[in-house]
């Protein structure tokens, strides 16, 4: 690894640095305590990271930001409804819902894949219209089939005299699945860091002993982990995380997904994803069934997104029957872009970094905007302006950097 001066590092991580600066400025003006920000941040990561990670595979397969997440979320909500109807609560209920989501989302994913294959080059308009169409089907299902043709008996699911499933589905009742996953093995940040550091260092050492890891890399990682553990021991630092707590199992699930993504990409199928993503024609010539590969990518992503939505709603404790799925796609896509992914390349790290930065900004921006302008409404508009503006800017900077890399040999090609 060549030595780099600070300026190069700054430039290469311009988006990240910009976000950190913005967040810091926002934090200063928001007047919020860091412990609160950390509390919120941990909550948001546990809710969203899985969804964002679900986007990686279709990106690599060249299918862009996958709006199938919306449809995966619909599958999850169908499962969640039935869990409530059957009154299966707790972890069992959650697992059952995840199990149910699997076939439903897989079928949906299959159909979307088929459809998208038939309109290559028109994915944009196809995706838009598909979203509306799927929403129509969802409404048909929840308004006119469930509760009417297929009766529902659980209290609160159907409002007497109305046409379908109630507007809010409550998962926080005694038999609900609220915190089914988050509630397990919840521990303080300090403990979590110690555990991570301990296990991390142990794993590294074992790998090193088995000579499976690069020596320098392993040592660096060990040092980083040790530093983290050291930092958290300082009371002042620990104080920052006093409110936050770590839903260990959820984080482990997220970690497992990262491993899954990596492992999958190393298999033959993963290679095919890459090949198809890079060039469909070449991949086809190389004997890869392009259409099939794309369908598989979408199916995997849809199922994962469904599980991500289950993780989201088990944390929230309720969801809006007719609106909860709509919010999913937009911010997951934005987060992964902010993390440095393009519509062709994405990694676990980019997804996680994007989630952290994006949500950090969303936490501090409202209060900061309000305090800067002294008017709550202006603050809210300012937040949205900054949030979207920064996403746009991040994309501009990523593209710009990409273009610069290409022209590395041509010095100072300044334009405008």
């Amino acid at each position, binding site marked *: 690894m060549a030595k780099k001066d600070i300026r190069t590092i700054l430039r290469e991580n311009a988006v990240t640095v910009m976000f950190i600066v913005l967040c810091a400025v926002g934090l200063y003006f928001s007047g919020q305590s860091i412990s609160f920000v950390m509390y919120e941040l941990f909550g948001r990561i546990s809710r969203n990271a899985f969804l964002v990670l679900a986007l990686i595979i279709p990106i690599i397969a060249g299918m862009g*930001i996958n709006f199938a997440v919306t449809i995966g979320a619909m599958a999850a909500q169908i499962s969640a409804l039935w869990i409530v109807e059957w009154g299966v609560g707790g972890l069992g209920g959650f697992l059952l819902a995840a199990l149910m989501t699997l076939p439903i989302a897989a079928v949906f994913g299959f159909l979307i894949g088929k*459809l998208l294959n*038939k*309109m*290559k*080059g*028109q994915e*944009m*308009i*196809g995706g*838009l*219209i*598909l979203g*509306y*169409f799927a*929403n*129509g*089907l969802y*409404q*048909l299902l929840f*308004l*006119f089939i469930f509760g009417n043709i297929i009766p529902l008996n659980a209290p609160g699911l159907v409002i007497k005299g109305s*046409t379908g499933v109630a507007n809010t589905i409550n998962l926080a009742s005694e038999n609900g699945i609220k915190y089914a996953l988050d509630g397990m093995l919840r521990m303080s940040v300090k403990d979590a860091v110690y555990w991570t550091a301990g296990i991390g260092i142990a794993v590294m050492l074992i790998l090193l002993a088995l000579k499976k890891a690069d020596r320098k890399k392993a040592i660096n990682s060990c040092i980083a982990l040790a530093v983290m553990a050291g930092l958290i021991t300082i009371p002042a630092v620990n104080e920052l995380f006093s409110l936050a707590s770590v839903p260990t199992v959820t984080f482990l699930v997220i970690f497992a997904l990262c491993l899954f993504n990596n492992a999958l990409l190393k298999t033959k199928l993963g290679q095919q994803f890459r090949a198809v993503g890079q060039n469909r024609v070449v991949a086809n010539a190389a004997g890869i069934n392009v259409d099939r590969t794309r369908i598989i990518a979408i199916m995997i992503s849809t199922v994962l997104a469904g599980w991500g939505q289950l993780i989201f709603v088990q944390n929230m404790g309720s969801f809006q029957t007719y609106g909860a799925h709509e919010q999913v796609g937009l911010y997951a896509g*934005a987060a992964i*872009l902010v993390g440095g992914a*393009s*519509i062709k390349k994405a990694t676990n790290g980019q997804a996680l970094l994007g989630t952290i930065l994006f949500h950090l900004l969303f936490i501090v921006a409202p209060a900061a905007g309000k305090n800067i*302008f002294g*008017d709550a*409404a*202006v603050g809210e*508009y*300012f*937040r*949205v*302006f900054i*949030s*979207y*503006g920064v*996403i*746009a800017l991040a*994309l*501009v900077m990523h*593209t*710009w950097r990409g*273009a610069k890399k290409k022209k590395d040999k041509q010095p100072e090609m300044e*334009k*405008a």
Partner: protein
Amino acid sequence: MKKGWRNILVAALSILGVVCIVIGSINMPKRTSEEGLEIIQKLRVRSLLSAVGDGVVDSYIAIAKKNATAEVKAKGGSMSDIRKAVQDAEERVRLEYQDAETNYLDKDVTDVKSRLEEFDIALGKYADEKVKAEKEYRESHMAEAEALAEKKREEASAQGLEAPPEETITVDMSGFEPTDNMIALRVEADEVYKKLGLALMEIEPQLSKDALITLQQRVESILYHEERDFATLYDGYSAFSGTDVLDDVNKAKLIRYADDFITVGVALLIAALAIFFYESIVKAMGVPRLIISLFFVLLCVGALLFDLSLPVLLGNTVVRMGMNSIMVLAMFPGIQCGISLNLGLPIGLVAGLLGGLMAIEFEIPGIWGFAFALASGSAIAAVAGYFYAKLLNRLKGSEMSVTTYVGFSIVSLMSIAWLMLPFNSLKLRWPLGTGLRNTIGLDKSNFWRILDNFLAFNIGDFRVPTGLLLFMALCCFLVWLFSRSKTGIAMRAVGNNRRFAQATGVNVDKMRTIGTVLSTVLGAIGILVYSQSYGFMQLYTAPRQMGFVAASAILIGGASTSRAKISHVIIGTFLFQGVLTLGMPVANELVPGSTISETMRILISNGIILYALTKSGGDTRG
């Protein structure tokens, strides 16, 4: 499909269509013939009798209900008390007259029939006279009303205010009194009604004189329909009393639905034509457009079958096409110059809104206000578009995701601006506190429907918004002309292949800038055209989604993200808006009283578009 089978199908459809049309055309004239009149008469007598029969009980119930309501109200009871009282009253009366059913089919009705005819004629005379008298009154008082309007205008200008523009002058009808003729005819009609009543009392023993008086209005409303065509009368009477009085129901139905036969026949012929000329149509329009067009035709047929007013619906479609077309047109230069779909359209939209706001703020009336709004909006849009283009020039190749977020971001930035901009007109500001309103109503003192109403005229029920269409045509023509100019051709070259264009010496960045600025300016004009037609200017989050709607329309019209033609703009806007405009009313008639109609509409229209897109075979025709 094999050629032979196809020809057979075409022949079958054509024959079926011709048969339908022939059946329809044979039966259609029967409506005004003896046969039709007889059917109507029979139904009418039956309706009258059942109206009087059930009507006696019903009218007693109605009276009881009214009394009960009044009683509870006098006591200061609430709505739930009323509900209960009314229910009790109805039950009571029904119980009382339980056994009072009469079978009318056995009765001799000749007397009633002739009396009824007399009454109908008398009533018709009176109604005609009333219409005539009202018309005369209006004409004779027109001068007065004009003078009044003139006076108002003078008063206004005397106070130094801007004269309000021409309004359609309405005559105050409150001074209208029945003419002698009318009164005489009315008395005559009442006389005839009395005779009719006597005839009725012979068959309906329970009928008392008092009941007859309360029933008069009801009888009149049953008999008298403003539209006296066969279909309305048939539907009205048969809905009231059923058709079992008729000897040959099928024959009557054939006459009633003759127009539907013709409609279906024409539809079948269109389908046959579409199949016959399949190749050449597909070549001209592409499969998706063909499917969506056929769906649109199907909706038109549906509208006719449900007796919706197709001219009105088509008129609405044309207005919607006009008001949305410029925004869709704004997508065109964007695609041509290679920035793909300009989802940053909100930049242009807010510029246009700003222009419109200024026109209202400075109180520039009428067409000049609109012109000022267009000019200032375009100027702002041009400046904003220039900087926007500079940004886009830096990220060639990934415009689409960026433009979306830039659009969102601008909408929020402008939301701050709407709160802070120093506009003073009270028409623009919030009723409480500071800042501009969310929805600003336009009126005749500024540019409300200034294009829609310019030289507008009616062909039957179909209203032609001449100004709007002319403006749309003008804009399309100018953009088309531009795209044919030297600059336009260079621009298209950039859109088609950037590297190739660069190699031939075209200044890529400059062309992209021109295209982006043009697109933004068209966005500004587009929102003003939209607002003047809708009658409101909507600020804050309203422009957020409009870019997507415009993009959908041009893509449905057949454009791709790198190629577009003016025809795509017009076809796309028409089909997208047409399916929307006709879809809802037809769906409402299809499943009345249930909101499932909206879900069906979403599913069917989006499903059709989706299906059409899958037929594009991965590429669109140019």
